[in-house]
């Protein structure tokens, strides 16, 4: 065997430029898988959460069970959640997507519901007075006004999903989590650190993207520049109550 080369890969440094250049494709694939898993799961969560929130608001009796069930799901640790889905989905990406979607449900249902309940009664009365039917009122008055609260939930759910996707490595579909898992087994410091930093960057990117989308979708709030309106109360409380789950 020839003498090992003295570069940062051989020295197993935490920060290693050679790692970035030689494993570019692996990193890119992992990032893509990570983004895909996150986006699909949050969209799935949204598709399930919206009808649940509407049901919980329309029928009072449904609110308790819907909120209770989603809270129970949120309490189950991620590793256990993925494990419980194993008999249904096997070692597949679908398992990770369904698990993450179930997690996002709590945050989404709660925030959509809070948004819908925050719609001023005068706005609803005005819509009814103008002859809007229930469907038109929901689509053109209530949902747009509920958007800021719903988007806050969506942002938290998405950021959490990015972090939780890494746990999918246990079934081999964890995006960047796979690299962290492999790096742990081979004590490959540069790989673990790079993948971890990329995870955080993806989360921040999604958060900013959704913030931009919210601004675009709610032009009537732009003039008032969210800051004084949000103040200490509502925004901080929403963050505080949401918590976070690994």
């Amino acid at each position, binding site marked *: 065997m020839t003498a090992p080369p003295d570069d940062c890969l051989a020295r197993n440094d935490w920060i290693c430029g050679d790692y970035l250049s030689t494993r570019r494709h692996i990193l890119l694939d992992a990032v893509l898988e990570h983004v895909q898993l996150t986006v699909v799961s949050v969209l799935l969560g949204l598709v399930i959460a919206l009808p649940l929130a509407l049901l919980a608001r329309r029928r009072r009796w449904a609110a308790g069970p819907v909120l209770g069930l989603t809270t*129970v799901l949120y*309490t*189950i*640790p*991620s*590793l*256990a*959640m993925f*494990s*419980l889905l*194993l*008999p249904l989905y096997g070692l597949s990406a679908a398992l990770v997507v369904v698990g993450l979607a179930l997690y996002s449900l709590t945050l989404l249902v709660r925030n959509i519901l809070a948004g819908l309940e925050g719609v001023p009664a005068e706005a609803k009365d005005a819509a009814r007075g103008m002859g809007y039917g229930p469907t038109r009122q929901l689509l053109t008055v209530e949902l747009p006004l509920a958007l800021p609260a719903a988007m806050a939930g969506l942002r*938290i759910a998405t*950021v*959490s999903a*990015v*972090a*939780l*996707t*890494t*746990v999918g*490595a*246990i079934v081999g579909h964890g995006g960047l*989590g796979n690299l*962290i*898992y492999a*790096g*742990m087994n081979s*004590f490959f*410091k540069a790989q*673990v*650190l790079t*993948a*971890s930093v990329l*995870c*955080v960057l993806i*989360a*921040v990117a999604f*958060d900013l993207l959704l913030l931009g989308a919210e601004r675009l979708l709610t032009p009537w709030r732009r003039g008032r520049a969210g800051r004084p309106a949000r103040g*200490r*109360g509502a925004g*901080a*409380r929403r*963050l*505080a*109550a*949401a*918590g*976070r*789950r*690994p």
Partner: protein
Amino acid sequence: MNTLAEVWSWLTTAAHWSGEMGIWHRLVQHFWLTVGCLAVSCLIALPVALTLGHLGRGGALAVNLANIGRAVPTFAILVLLLLTPLGRHGEWPTVIALVLFAIPPLLTNAYVGMREVDQDVVRAARGMGMTGRQLVWRVELPLAFPLVLTGVRIAAVQLVATATLAALVGGGGLGRIITAGFNLASTPQVVAGAVVVAVFALLMEAAFEAGQRCAPAWARGRMR
């Protein structure tokens, strides 16, 4: 149906409950890991949050900490700590990661609780001649208590989940039953382990729920 029967038979096999790798031992490990780290995190986070909340300083940090904590994958921190020199010292990477992730919800909720105390009440207390210390202990903390408790509850549930993940990096606790199941390619063991973990987490949540219901009215706060 078949899997359910297998899971049931795994759970009802006496041999799986006893010994070093048994459910009882893992359960006790998990419990002490959670409770011990919760105590340590409270000792670190609550004094800081109460001081900052009382002084009205560092709000951006206190509120944003929860956001930052949410964006950082627990699994990544566990592995990063394992690869540092700390990783050679048994449970230390697990304990540090657990405490790190329990601090944000504690800090944020306690801070928000302190800041949301009605300022009229605070002014009245000052007018009565209360010192800063009296203000914290007799006025602000009692009024902020429900939200402080919510933070402890979120942190506790979070700790149960993080302690489960610790099994991936060789830490003790109930997660080990799941990871061992994956290594043995035994679906019944994986699911059985997950059931035990889920029940443990839900019992923890239920204990807090019961505690909050039985607490005196001032500690419960308004229902939100």
